[in-house]
């Protein structure tokens, strides 16, 4: 019960935040954008966590999937007037197809090769978007029409805020459900022990590919929403830098945890915005944080938060539980 006492008011705050922001007049445009942008980044962080934290498959080019989704949505919108839902769905689908190019070789790659190949994927998407300017607008980018959703105009900052918030909640629920059913358990099994997973009937290779596809779909859909939110896409937005930011979100949040990924996204986004005026500062802080987290807080933010919650959950590997032997 006490958990409801926290959850319900906070969910209400999230829902009424735009109304409160009315008080600051025009300035809400910026703050609504910042929070909406954070919602979308958090979806990408969740998707990367599904792949990296849950399935143990590293991806250093995740913004490549975001780029594929964003460009798909932008092109469909600019040329055919496809709406936000269609754009996000098509973006996710195309990113999922693109992920097969990575996912299939990935099943044959040893851990660190995968990191390098995904890095290359991120770079390649960038270069192709730049080169294929007839379709993508090259470095001048692509402007989208005012976003609509199922025939409704959602082009105001407040409505886009709700679109992003609902998208994050939906993504959270989807991933949460997935991890609590057969396929999600198979992801974790593959990460923990490929041999044991296979012995339990989990097809290791295709499970890895499916994890790639799921993760890419989410990242691509987030990219599609992002394109509508920003109203503009350009190749420079999806470089290694942004892949590393998503990576930092997952690591700092604590791998293998959805709340962790969201928390990591908050921290990274806040640092990125706060340190924007001093060049190199955010990179140095985030890099330093990653090193410290790995060395001293292997569970990341997730573990720190959990340590402080009143009721400890049993499944928590950040402490060494000693279980009484009852035999």
């Amino acid at each position: 019960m006490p958990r409801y006492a926290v959850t319900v008011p906070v969910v209400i705050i999230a829902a009424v935040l735009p109304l409160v922001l009315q008080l600051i007049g025009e300035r809400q445009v910026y703050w609504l954008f910042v929070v909406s942008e954070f919602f979308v980044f958090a979806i990408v962080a969740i998707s990367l966590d599904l792949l990296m934290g849950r399935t143990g498959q590293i991806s250093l080019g995740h913004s490549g999937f975001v780029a594929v989704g964003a460009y798909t949505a932008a092109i469909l919108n600019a040329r055919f007037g496809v709406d936000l839902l269609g754009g996000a769905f098509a973006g996710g689908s195309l990113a999922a197809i693109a992920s097969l190019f990575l996912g299939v070789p990935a099943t044959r790659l040893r851990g660190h090769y995968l990191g390098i190949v995904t890095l290359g994927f991120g770079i390649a998407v960038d270069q192709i978007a730049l080169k294929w300017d007839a379709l993508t607008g090259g470095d001048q980018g692509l402007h989208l029409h005012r976003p609509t959703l199922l025939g409704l105009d959602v082009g105001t900052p407040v409505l886009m805020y709700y679109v992003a918030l609902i998208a994050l909640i939906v993504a959270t629920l989807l991933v949460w459900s997935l991890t609590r059913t057969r396929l999600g358990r198979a992801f974790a099994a593959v990460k923990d022990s490929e041999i044991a997973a296979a012995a339990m009937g989990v097809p290791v290779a295709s499970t890895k590919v499916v994890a790639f596809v799921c993760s890419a779909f989410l990242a691509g859909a987030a990219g599609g929403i992002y394109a509508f939110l920003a109203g503009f896409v350009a190749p420079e937005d999806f470089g290694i830098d942004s892949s590393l930011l998503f990576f930092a979100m997952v690591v700092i949040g604590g791998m293998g945890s959805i709340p962790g990924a969201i928390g990591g996204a908050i921290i990274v986004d806040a640092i990125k915005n706060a340190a924007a005026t001093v060049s190199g500062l955010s990179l140095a802080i985030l890099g330093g944080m990653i090193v410290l987290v790995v060395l001293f807080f292997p569970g990341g933010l997730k573990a720190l938060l959990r340590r402080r919650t009143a009721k400890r959950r049993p499944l928590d590997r950040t402490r060494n539980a000693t279980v009484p032997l009852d035999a």
Partner: protein
Amino acid sequence: MTVRFGGLVAVDRLDLDVPDTGIFALVGPNGAGKTTLINALSRVCSIASGSVRVNGTDVLELLPHQVVSAGVARSFQRAELFPTLTVLENLLVGLHSEMTTGLEGALMTPSTRRQEKAARVRAERLLRELNLWELRDFSPADLPYGHQKLLDVARALISEPKLLLLDEPFAGLTEAETPRLLACIAGAGRRCAVLMIEHHFELLEGIAERVTVMNFGRKIAEGSPSGVRRDPEVLRCYLGTGRHGQAETAAC
């Protein structure tokens, strides 16, 4: 069946026949090919020749993840559990090939819920049987080793295999931890065929119907636990140094 690694013949033309139920043990010194045999049966190592039929299906022609559907499940020498998952979820992975939920799991469709519920009921029943119920939400990494081995066996058992392969289930257990696992295995032996690697003859004497002794990949003796113990060749190359029937590394 034969398993080769390069020039080394780890399992050499071994013939083994087990009926539908009962406990059968494999013994032999280190390097005799026991674990290799189990790995070959569960298709972890893919370079075996010959054939292994379980109810007519040749296991050696399957992919590793198809073996369990053919009715062959296994445990591991060093309890290869999934620490990311809870104890309960570890058992549910054991039911992976019986369930069908794929991506639609993300949508929690009614059929997903039904499957999940049914699987949970089975897993919970097994956990209660094994007295692991209290620990269901812990990570296996936080359990004492004895519980881990028990869980490892349970995870193989939950799929109700026809052939259960156990790789040294008692290795590393304390005296206090042994009886629970022993009871569990004895129970399994009444439902299916259990092929286990074990050195403790005393443990085997109570439960195993037949013991096969291997050395250098070959079968050198076969029979009841007490009978095999008296076999001169077995004594010569294997049991000579053991104090209470436990094998030391003895080459012959």
